[in-house]
């Protein structure tokens, strides 16, 4: 903190020294800046959040460039024809660097090995990561826009509004997803678009429940009553005053809805909706790796690790946001 006095002696920074060993040299005056700027500064200074950001960035980079710079495409079946004219496919090969050795494919590099059809799992994992990243961002969007608003509004108004809105949730949640999706598939082409629509239909429900519960808890507190008495608009109270105080559980919930959504995509494949083969997603890679889990265990590892890293990254970012948005948590 820089103090200024208008006397003859102009103190310099060097004149002061810290009493305690606490590092407060970087402290800023929060009162003097806007809320969001404070959030940004706080967030950027959070080491864990930055690590998380780094992880997600690395995954995004690999998802974009991994398949591009690979010597195989995600659908290439690696094979050769032996002397007797039989095609031999490089299926089920464990991760190898391709340094040579025995066997027809010893000089090929398969960092993550190959799958059941002799396709390079390195390429397919990153190809699949694209899909899972898209799903992750769509889920965040659905959670934030639909789920949160729905829950906050339902909880805030309560009474008849809440009653009707919650009954709608019950109906939406009770029709089995596979049934809705099969019916939708009649009207629109199967593929990523349909997956997103399917997610839109139900993925917001968990978030809306959390937001509603938080709203029910907070709306009875004094400051909300004060705002109301002062004539604040409902929407203002909901989104400007209460929302920042509910952010903790909302971010936690968002983090858990991402892997759920990724597995939902794979689950939809039961009715043939989802990613069209030979394309792949992290969810579908985990499922096909699962078929060989004891015989070829390396097949399931890359997609699970990529998913776990991605989730770790998202969680670190989420924690960072949470703490930045509610600065009282940190050593302020």
């Amino acid at each position, binding site marked *: 903190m820089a103090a200024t006095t208008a006397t003859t002696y102009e103190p310099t920074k060097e004149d002061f020294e810290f009493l305690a060993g606490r590092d407060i040299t970087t402290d800023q005056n929060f009162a003097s800046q806007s809320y969001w700027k404070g959030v940004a500064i706080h967030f950027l200074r959070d080491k864990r959040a930055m690590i998380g950001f780094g992880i997600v960035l690395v995954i995004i980079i690999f998802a974009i460039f991994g398949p591009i710079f690979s010597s195989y495409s995600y659908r290439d*079946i690696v094979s050769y024809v032996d002397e007797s004219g039989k*095609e*031999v496919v490089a299926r089920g090969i464990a991760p190898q660097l391709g340094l040579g050795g025995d066997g027809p494919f010893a000089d090929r590099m398969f960092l993550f090995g190959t799958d059941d059809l002799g396709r390079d799992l390195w390429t397919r994992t990153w190809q699949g990561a694209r899909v899972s990243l898209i799903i992750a961002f769509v889920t965040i969007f659905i959670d934030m826009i639909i789920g949160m608003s729905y829950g906050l509004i339902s909880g805030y108004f309560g009474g008849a509004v809440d009653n009707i809105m919650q009954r709608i949730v019950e109906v939406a949640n009770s029709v089995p997803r596979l049934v809705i999706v099969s019916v939708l598939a009649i009207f629109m082409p199967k593929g990523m678009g349909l997956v997103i629509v399917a997610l839109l239909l139900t993925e917001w429900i968990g978030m809306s429940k959390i937001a509603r519960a938080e709203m029910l808890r907070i709306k009875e507190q004094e400051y909300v009553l004060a705002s109301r008495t002062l004539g604040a608009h409902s929407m203002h109270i909901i989104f400007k005053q209460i929302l920042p105080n509910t952010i903790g559980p909302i971010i936690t919930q968002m983090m858990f809805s991402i892997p759920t959504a990724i597995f939902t995509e794979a689950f939809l494949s039961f*009715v043939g909706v989802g990613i069209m083969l030979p394309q792949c997603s992290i969810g579908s890679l985990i499922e096909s790796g699962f*078929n060989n889990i004891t*015989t070829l265990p390396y097949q399931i590892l890359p997609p699970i690790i990529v998913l776990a890293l991605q989730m770790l990254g998202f969680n670190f970012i989420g924690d960072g946001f949470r703490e930045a948005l509610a600065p009282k948590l940190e050593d302020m």
Partner: protein
Amino acid sequence: MLGTNVMSLDTDLATDGDSFEVIADCIDGLMQMDADGAAIPALAESFDLSDDGKTYTFHLRDAKWNNGTAVTANDFVFAWRRICKNAGEYAYMMSDIGNIKGAAEIMEGADPTTLGVSATDDKTFVVELNVPVSFFPSLMYFPTFYPINEEFYTGLADGTYGTSADTFLSCGAFMLEDYIPGTANLSVKKNPDYWDADKIQLPGITYQVVGSSDSALTAFKNGSLDVVMISGNQVAAAKEDAELSKNLTVTGAGYMWYLTFSQTEKNAQGGMLANQNLRLAISNAIDRESLVDNYVMDGSLATYTAVPPQFAASSTTGEDFSADQQKFADFCSFDTAKAQKFYEDAKKELGVDGFEFTMIYGNNEGDEVTKVAQAIKEQVEAALSGMVINLQAMTKAERLDKMQNDNYDVALTRWGPDYADPMTYLGMWITDNDNNYGFWSNAEYDKLIADCVTGAYISDYDARWQAMYDAETLVMQEAVIAPLYTKANANLIAAGVEGIDFHPVALNRVYKTATVA
């Protein structure tokens, strides 16, 4: 082990191989299968055939249901009438296949008592046919033709027959011990009252539904299961394992996977697949050996004939109908150069440069189907430039629905033999047959088949055999279908377990001669 849950123990309702297997453990037919699949007497001690080949008289032996009542000819009359009246999935075995008098009419609503079966006395069962059916005795081991005790059945509440050990009556080698519908494990125990009980060695069998091939392999290694069926990579792993490879037995599963092409105008870019050369091009661009070696891997056979090998042998020469897989090599082989020639011709005839078709396949029909579908796509697209095959996964039910409503381009489908005669396949491609998914129609073919079923060749075995070969040639020449492979089952059998009979037709596993050390 079983691949799927037992769906029903009622011969009228069961449709899947696993249900048939358990039913056959517990109930005997008039005839049974020997180790080679030939029909030998079971509940019928012997039978007489009339001179015109249209009346079978079965003489029943003394056998008992496990509630003590005797198995009588009336049990057959009751069961068969019921099958025809309810007109379920396998009722066609009575009408179209067995050609039993009155069956077809009853299925359309006629009085069930008009069925051409009668019980002259308790031990004599007479069946009248419309035409001679050369393979009729071999139908008798199929569960649809098994008896049900009328008195017992009518004494049960509606819908409860076969839903527990108490509501099910056995007259076979085993009897139901523990079963509820939908169960993942069931058990049968030796039936002490079985007419041939002395020969039965096993004290009982416990069935466990296993979710995946991987799980089957570990359960086998663990000793939890003595007989399991594995597929794909687990077969490859078992082959490489010194111990497991000794336990591995590959048996024919009978059914053939093939591609069917919709030839109607509304599909495949305005009926492009009605072009014979285009179909031939696709069929010849597929490397079937690679499919079975690299993707199916369980010992399945690459197939180049419309009737798969290993299930129908001539009763005069003993030779398998499709032993020679090279006989249609001109129309069906893996030859990219030839495929491209057909393709060029097709492009010229159709006046287009590229094609985009959608291939439908079932996603709940085994992992290898998903693999094979992808491999076919890559093979065909690599061999024929400008051809795009899009894959569309769906449930088997939806696939059938699309095929039956002619709403597809190319479909990956399968057919298993219901009886040991090539007609179980060839009967499908006659005009307007419900299984003729390509909507192909050829008058010459229709006539050949009609002659074999009800016409000129019914009493001339060799001429009929030759006519069926001619018919098959037509199917292959025009590439109505592209046969892919004939499925095999890779079984792991624990040391000490011997004598289980495996069959590609009707009953996949029979335990009557099985022993456990």
